[in-house]
Each structure stands twice: as structure tokens, then as C-alpha cells.
């Protein structure tokens, strides 16, 4: 079988398989799969409102996915994207409401604050990994919990026991009346521009700079990199910091775009963890992450429309998980197809 055909066939088959199994789940639980998938489609592409919502949902996924992917390329598993995102969210919201500045300074400052907060939060596991060989997975997971509760405590102390910060000033907002009118208040905001720029930046760092080459080299083989005269420790810390900055920006999307403030939360947002899946779907490449996030975000947002035809959220979650599961396990189908064609050739 020609290689090109396999490349096209694999994802097609995996999505069809995912949808089929999802349809079976719906049938077994007594819902109409055609109606369900129709609602999913409408929920993603139905009109300008849902399109706007889809883009909004994709935006933080892109950045969270970039964060995970960047660390991966350097051989680090950053599970702390969630925590870095929360810190970025908090920082952006704080700068957004506490300062009174013209938009041209305010907005970039709030975004920068988010990136710095995320970077700082990732710096700690980076440092521990580089200096003391503490495994970053453990540290980043724990930093997630610390971030969650530190953020909640800071919000409370900032607002005298309140549960949310005041709304950010207009000058720090990524939203615009233009987009609101265009997409019928879908909450779509200019964050998608930032996400796209970051995709390019990540590509540029990794593929076009000496530093990026070093980072990748460390990811491939730390010992070889060290013998080649690279500073492995410095690169590990740098990779975590850049990864954290991406995650912080994802938080800025929530603070300056979707919500316009930050509130006390009881549990994780889940965006950071979904970012791991997005990065893996996108094979840790910038463009791949963008596509992975598009698939993930579209499914997640479109799924919100499925309860509108009477399918409970729990079933919807299972179906979406199934589709993503099959897309992610495309490798199995690839192997299967290759075996099939080999058998044919043998005959």
C-alpha cells in the first residue's frame, strides 16, 4: 500500500471507528446517534455564534498544548501546565484590574505578567530537576495543587474574603465589541491571534535558533549533549521556563478573554491536563499542536450542544473521549493496515 494512502486512511478510519463506537454507546443507552452527531456538528459549525465559541475553546488548548509539547521536545514531562495556567490566570487578572493604564501598555503588561507567572511556577521544577535531579513529574504535579490553593488564598486576601476578583479594566481585555457583535456574544476574543503567534514562535525557537537546537539535543540525549559541550542544566531550566510561559499565556486567555476575572475554584480547570493529550495528538510539533487543539477544542465545545437534544452530559463525555481515543491510537490502525498490505504482497 502506498505510504500516502496510509497517511490519509489512518485518521479517516480512526475517526469513523470513534464515531461508530460512540454511536453504539448512544444506541445502547437509548439515544438517537444521528441526532446526537448532528447536534455536535451544529455545536461546532452551526452559525457564527458556535464558530466563535469553538475558536474561544481552542485558544487555551493551543497554548496549553504548546507548553506540554515544548517541554516534551527537551525530554521533560511538564504535567504542571495546569498549575502554571492557574498562576498565569491570577497574574493576568490582577494586573488587569489593579492597574489603570492605557490599553497599549496595559494589555501587553497583563499578558506578560501571565507569562512571567507561569514561567516562574515552572522554574522551580526546572531548577530542582537540573540541580538535584528531582523528577519533574512529581514536582510539577505537586506544584499544581500548590498553585490551586495559593491562587484561592491570594484571591481571598485580595478581596477581603471574597470569591472572585473585580472585573479587569477594558484596557486589559482581549474582548472587543466588534467580535461580540460578529459572533453574537460568543465570548470569542483576540487571544487566538496570540495563540497563533506563539505557534510560530515555538516553531522558530525550535527550528531556527541555536538555542532551540540545543534544547532538542538535550531532549534526544543528555549525555551526548553534554559531551558536545552544551550546558544541560541550563537548557533544562530554560525549557521549563519557556514551557511555563506558554502555560501562563493560556491562563491569560481565561483571565483577559473568556472570564474577565479570576475566582476561587474548587478543582482544576482541566485545560492543562487536556494540553498533554493535545501535545501528543500533535506529535509535539507546533503545527501539530494547533491541529490537535482544533480537534480537541471543537469536540469539547460542540459537545456542549449535545445535551440540547436530550443526551446527558455523561454520555457526551464518553463519546468525545472515544473519538479522541481512536484518533490518538491511530498507530494501531497504521500497523494493521501495513500488515494487511504485506499479506497481499506476499500473495
Amino acid at each position, binding site marked *: 500500500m502506498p505510504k500516502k494512502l496510509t497517511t490519509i486512511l489512518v*485518521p479517516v478510519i480512526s475517526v469513523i471507528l470513534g464515531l461508530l463506537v460512540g454511536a453504539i454507546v448512544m444506541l445502547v443507552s437509548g439515544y438517537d446517534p444521528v441526532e446526537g452527531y448532528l447536534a455536535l456538528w451544529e455545536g461546532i459549525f452551526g452559525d457564527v455564534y458556535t464558530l466563535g465559541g469553538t475558536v474561544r475553546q481552542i485558544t487555551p488548548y493551543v497554548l496549553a498544548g504548546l507548553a506540554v509539547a515544548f517541554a516534551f521536545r527537551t525530554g521533560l514531562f511538564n504535567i504542571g501546565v495546569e498549575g502554571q495556567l492557574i498562576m498565569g490566570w491570577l497574574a493576568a487578572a490582577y494586573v488587569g484590574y489593579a492597574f489603570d493604564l492605557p490599553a497599549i501598555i496595559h494589555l501587553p503588561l497583563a499578558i506578560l505578567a501571565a507569562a512571567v507567572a507561569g514561567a516562574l511556577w515552572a522554574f522551580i521544577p526546572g531548577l530542582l530537576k537540573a540541580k538535584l535531579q528531582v523528577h519533574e513529574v512529581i514536582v510539577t504535579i505537586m506544584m499544581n495543587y500548590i498553585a490551586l490553593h495559593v491562587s484561592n488564598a491570594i484571591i481571598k486576601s485580595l478581596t477581603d474574603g471574597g470569591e472572585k476578583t473585580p472585573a479587569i479594566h477594558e484596557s486589559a481585555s482581549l474582548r472587543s465589541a466588534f467580535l461580540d457583535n460578529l459572533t453574537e*456574544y460568543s465570548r470569542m476574543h483576540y487571544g487566538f491571534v496570540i495563540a497563533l503567534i506563539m505557534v510560530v514562535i515555538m516553531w522558530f525557537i525550535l527550528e531556527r535558533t541555536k538555542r532551540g537546537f540545543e534544547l532538542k539535543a538535550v531532549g534526544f540525549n543528555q549525555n551526548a549533549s553534554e559531551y558536545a559541550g552544551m550546558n544541560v542544566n541550563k537548557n533544562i531550566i530554560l525549557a521549563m521556563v519557556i514551557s511555563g510561559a506558554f502555560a501562563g499565556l493560556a491562563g491569560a486567555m481565561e483571565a483577559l478573554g473568556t*472570564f474577565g476575572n479570576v475566582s476561587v475554584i*474548587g*478543582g482544576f480547570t482541566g485545560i492543562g491536563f487536556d494540553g498533554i493529550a493535545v501535545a501528543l495528538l500533535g506529535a509535539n510539533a507546533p*503545527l*501539530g499542536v494547533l491541529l490537535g487543539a482544533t480537534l480537541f477544542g*471543537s469536540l469539547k*465545545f460542540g459537545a456542549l450542544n449535545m445535551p440540547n437534544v436530550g443526551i*446527558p452530559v455523561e454520555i457526551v463525555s464518553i463519546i468525545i473521549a472515544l473519538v479522541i481515543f481512536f484518533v490518538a491510537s491511530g498507530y494501531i490502525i497504521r500497523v494493521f493496515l501495513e500488515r494487511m498490505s504485506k499479506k497481499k504482497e506476499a500473495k
Partner: protein
Amino acid sequence: MTKRKFGLALSVVLAAGTLLGACGSKDDSSKGDKESKEKNFSIAMVTDLGGIDDKSFNQSAWEGIQKFGKDNALEKGNGGYEYLASKSSSDYNVNLNSLVRRDFNLIFGVGYLMEDSIKEVASQKPKTNFSIIDGKVDAPNVASILFKEQEGAFLAGVAAASVTKSNKIGFVGGIDIPVINRFHAGFVEGVKAVNPDIKVDAVYTGAFDKAELGKTTANRMYTSGVDVIFHAAGATGNGVFTEAKERKTKDANANVWVIGVDADQYKEGQVNDKTNVTLTSVMKRVDIAVQDVAKKAKEDKFPGGEILTYGLSDNGMALADSHGAITDDVMKKIDDYAKQIADGKIKVPEKVEK
């Protein structure tokens, strides 16, 4: 390497394309029946993170909506009554907008967490009426529903203080917010009214959707000798019930009680046919409030921009049937307090004295 990556990237695009393409062809069929539905007065609600079967707050609101639907011969779905469940805080706006787009006349946001979203969507969609439960939104098309939780909780405090043998009583709260503070304050006050020496061990778990947190907190309390726990923690409180039931299953003589919240949680406390750990429940009749507002809205008297407060005097708060767990003389005492509160003779504070 690059080629492979490109191939993968391409495949994801195609994957997305196929997925969407597969559903595209049947696009036209659904639009027709939306318009053919006759024009009724229709109501809907959006849950907060607890979900529709949280056995308390959201469920109670949904029961009210279902009741209203039945009374007015409405059907579930467009033009009748409906709910949408939220899984994360970013879903609130989306769900509210979905319901607006499906032309519901009155949409309830259940829980203070939805304040911002209701405020935002209400200003964008001035033609639809909204109502926020447990929150305050100042807008001409929003009716805010509040409860005097402290009044119901006071009675629960009286019950707890009369039943306890160890003189140790627990309170498990959700997030530390005014609504839960009112439950807390009323409960402490009620306990104090019976026996000022009892200390209430109060813990805020910080979440309304984490049963495991409720369970560990209850475990800690019961182990320390507490024998009655009042929970005001939504689905987190289900863990309190689980812990109490486990203790009762292990040792039938264990003296553990739970006081439920929001709805009658008697069923939650069922250990077996004979035993039940639910002492009583502080019922916040969200269902009554929901029906009241819906009825007013239907008669074109929607209390937009107003803040409605429901308490003991208008049956907005009440204690559930104890099924014999509370003796008659204690019941008499409780009724006496209830009357004094309803008449305004006792003022129950909204905040815990520190």
C-alpha cells in the same frame, strides 16, 4: 522526520474534516420542527458544577421546574421545560446562551457561581427573563432569589444540640461564601440556644462537588467524638452520608447522625430497612421559589430587578420530616423556635461571631 510530521499534521486535518463531513449532509432536517412548536410559556435552568442529581440544590430547582411544567401541561424540551448541566465554569455562558437561543422565556441560573454569567448574558439578551438563585444581579430582566438559610439552620442546630450525647457537633461547609456562612451562623446559634457549652467543629472543604473530601472530613469528625454533623456542601456532603452509613453498617449501635441540606435527604441516609442516619434536613425550598417566580413571570408580573428573600415565614425554609429520629418534645421545642423566628421575635444572625 519533517515529512512524517507533515503527514501527521495532514492526517489530523483530514480526521477533523471527515468527522465533521460525516455529519454535514443531514444538516437541514432539524431546523423545521423548531418553529412548528406552539408558543408556550417555557422555563429552563442551568445547573452549577454539582449537576442535576446533586441530591440537593440543583435537584430541588429542577423538581420545581418539573412541577411547574406538569401544572402547566408543558413537555420537556423546546417550548416546555429543560435543564442544561455545566461541567466547568466556562460552560455557564454557553449553556445560558443555548437556552436563550432555544427561545425559553425564563431561565434560571442555579447558584451564586453563575452571578457573572447571568449578569453578562442578561445584558446581551434583554428580551429574555433570567433569575439567579442564591445570588444578586441588578438588571431589569433578572430576578434575584435569596434564602434566609440561617433560619432553617437554627432549627437544625436546636435539633442537633438536643440529640447529641457527646456534646460535640460538626459542621461541614462547601466553599466559604455568604450563603454557606448563613447556614453556619444559624446552626451555631441554634446549638447555642439549647446548650451554650457545646462547641461546633466547623470545616469548610472548599468544594461543592468533592464527595471524597466530605467523607474524609466526616471521618475525622466522627473519630474525634462528634455524633451529629450538619453539612451544607452540596455533593461534597454526599461523602458525609457515606461515612456515617459505613460506620453504622460496621457497628449498628454507633451514634452517628447527619443533617442534610437543601432537599429532604432522608433517602441518602438509608443504611438498611430499619436504620437511617439522617436526623433531619434543612430544606431550602428552591422548588417553591422557582415555581413562585415562574408563576409570576407567566402572569406577566415578572419581578425583574427585585431581590426576593424566602424564609421560614413563607415556607422557603423548613425542616424535613425526621421519621421519628427526633422525639416529640424536641419537635415541640423546634416548632416553638420556628414560630418565634417566623414572627420576627428571634433574629438569627447571618454571620458567625468570631
